[in-house]
């Protein structure tokens, strides 16, 4: 009981400190993780074996960690596969950014549609959706938003609706694959799902939703976009050429090849047996080897703070799991639902969505994975059904508010910096209906197909 109280207290204080941003969030989770190890496992439980299990370093040296043989492997605590995969993808993405790939892609597509506002709007939404399937949504929005602002200035349109649509599509695209959004990586690597498992389940829901969302944003925002703020014709020669974005031609093709290798490895990893940890490390090594003298520039840009944030977070959630706190939550949900599986799906999707709209969806999903595992064991509902419900809820729910997901923060911050601060009212008016549309589609689809 004391251990449970200590674990909950550490978790709640950690959450409050993350929200207040007084201390950088990786220090918060690492400090909380250390406290969990000392107070919960050391002082309260006096279980030093469990302490070592939570740190979970031993998992890295097993062959199963790098190439799965299909054998069941149960491991709680720090999910090193997620950490290594995220780290590896970050290195690869920074390599691509260095050579100007993302900027080139944005400018190329804008040129392809002849710099017409509505076609740019539709093309950028699609690009955001597709890119976010494979790379982190922060990077996708960083580049898309900056090019959108640049084009908006030159073509004299309001960039805010376009940025909001891009943000939503990045979050939606992220829900389609295992590597698209951190909650999916956590769900996938903890519950042993493959890249294709996600594509054939959440991917289908995301694709159906995307069609509706494009139509929704088009009808809601076309007026705002077609209202030009200036009367004079735009001189297209003033627009930067896509090729001017490329800073290193050879590096451009090399990094593009590494990106394609990453996609192939991810799509085939269920057949090859290569784990996401292996893929992450492989693409990172390839990027490092081929970056030559630029290797330090690339490595310096990697967001190591997020990786440290994950490590600390997994320890704290491990504390909650080990002390049985998460089972209490699972029991509570199963008591409400009984054998009404549809209600359980509705609760998981909408609870995850509402929670993710206000709090970071990464700690939330890390906390909920053991909860749905326990629910599946005790109630008999398929774990797959709950996993896809959790993924859709956490990935999409985050779109509803400006603070729900990292892509929203980066998109609205870029807009604010360019002179277009976006308040909650303006943001939610456009994004809440879009979120509700996708959540309804996800709920109906999951209930109809899986129950």
């Amino acid at each position, binding site marked *: 009981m004391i251990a449970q109280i200590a674990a909950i207290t550490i978790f709640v204080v950690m959450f409050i400190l993350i929200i207040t941003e007084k201390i950088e969030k990786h220090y918060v989770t690492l400090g909380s993780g250390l406290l969990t190890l000392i107070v919960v496992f050391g002082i309260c439980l006096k279980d030093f074996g469990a302490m070592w299990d939570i740190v979970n370093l031993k998992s890295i040296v097993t062959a199963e960690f790098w190439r799965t043989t299909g054998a069941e492997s149960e491991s709680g605590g720090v999910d090193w596969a997620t950490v290594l995969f995220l780290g590896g993808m970050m290195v690869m993405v920074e390599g691509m950014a260095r050579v100007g790939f993302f900027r080139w892609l944005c400018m190329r597509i804008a040129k392809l549609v002849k710099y017409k506002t509505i076609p740019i709007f539709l093309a950028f939404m699609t690009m955001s959706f597709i890119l976010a399937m494979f790379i982190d949504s922060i990077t996708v929005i960083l580049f898309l938003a900056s090019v959108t602002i640049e084009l908006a200035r030159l073509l004299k349109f309001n960039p805010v609706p376009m940025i909001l649509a891009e943000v939503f599509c990045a979050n939606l695209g992220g829900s389609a694959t295992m590597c698209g959004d951190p909650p999916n990586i956590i769900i996938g690597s903890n519950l042993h799902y493959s890249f294709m498992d996600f594509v054939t389940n959440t991917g289908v829901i995301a694709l159906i939703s995307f069609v509706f969302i494009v139509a929704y944003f088009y009808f809601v925002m076309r007026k705002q976009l077609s209202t030009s703020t200036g009367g004079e014709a735009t001189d297209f020669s003033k627009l930067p050429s896509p090729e001017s974005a490329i800073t290193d031609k050879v590096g451009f093709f090399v990094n593009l090849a590494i990106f394609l290798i990453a996609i192939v490895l991810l799509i085939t990893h269920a057949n090859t047996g290569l784990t996401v940890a292996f893929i992450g490390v492989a693409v990172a090594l390839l990027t490092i080897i081929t970056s030559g003298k630029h290797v330090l520039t690339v490595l310096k840009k990697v967001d190591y703070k997020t990786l440290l944030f994950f490590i600390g977070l997994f320890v704290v959630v491990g504390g909650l799991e080990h002390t049985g706190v998460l089972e209490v939550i699972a029991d509570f949900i199963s008591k409400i639902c009984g054998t009404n599986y549809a209600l359980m799906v509705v609760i998981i999707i909408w609870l995850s969505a509402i929670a993710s709209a206000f709090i970071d969806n990464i700690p939330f999903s890390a906390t909920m994975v053991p909860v749905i595992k326990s629910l599946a064991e005790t109630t008999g509902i398929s774990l797959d059904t709950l996993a896809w419900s959790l993924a859709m809820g956490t990935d999409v729910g985050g779109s509803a508010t400006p603070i729900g997901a990292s892509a929203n923060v980066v998109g609205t911050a870029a807009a604010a910096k360019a002179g277009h601060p*976006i308040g909650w009212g303006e943001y939610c008016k456009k994004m809440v209906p879009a979120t509700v549309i996708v959540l309804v589609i996800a709920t109906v689809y999951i209930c109809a197909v899986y129950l």
Partner: protein
Amino acid sequence: MEKQLIIAVSREYGTGGHRVAKALAEKFGINFYDRRMLEEIADQKNMSVDTLHKYDELPRNVFISRTVRGMSNSPEEAVANFQFDYIREKADSGESFVILGRCAEHVLKDHPALITVFILGDKEDKLKYVEERRRVNAQQAAAMMYRHDKKRKAYHNYYCPNKWGDARGYDVTLNISKLGVEKAADFLESYVRMRIELNK
């Protein structure tokens, strides 16, 4: 004016600090910047001045905004930064001016031409001043004072390491109740002239 001069004036609500700052600008024949700088910023950024006013002099609300990779999506913080950049640009251009509020004493803290002032006053005098200027009763004046000072303090303490009104953060802290607006402006003028002399 030969050498650049920047006077940053902060003040409690109801002290007449705005009038003192304006009088100082007139005495030295230099520009005066206050809330109206938002109009120029709105022009530069091609945005609505109402949007800027809506988020002006407000601290970031930690519960409804977040920072990711050093990028904050708080509109209040964005508007504050527009003003900080504007003040820095003015200072870097070599222009002499008096600036009211906007954390200027911190934003320009390393600028050699900067002189910082904080004006406070006795509660009764401030109440009387607000009642007369705003034509409100004592209760309304007290509520206005409380609201404005709370807002200014929160704004300042969010963006600056030194506390709002703490004498250690300013060159001069002056209780205006003992002198009144005009004498306070005269006193500050002589102080500034003394500083200019010393820096020659």
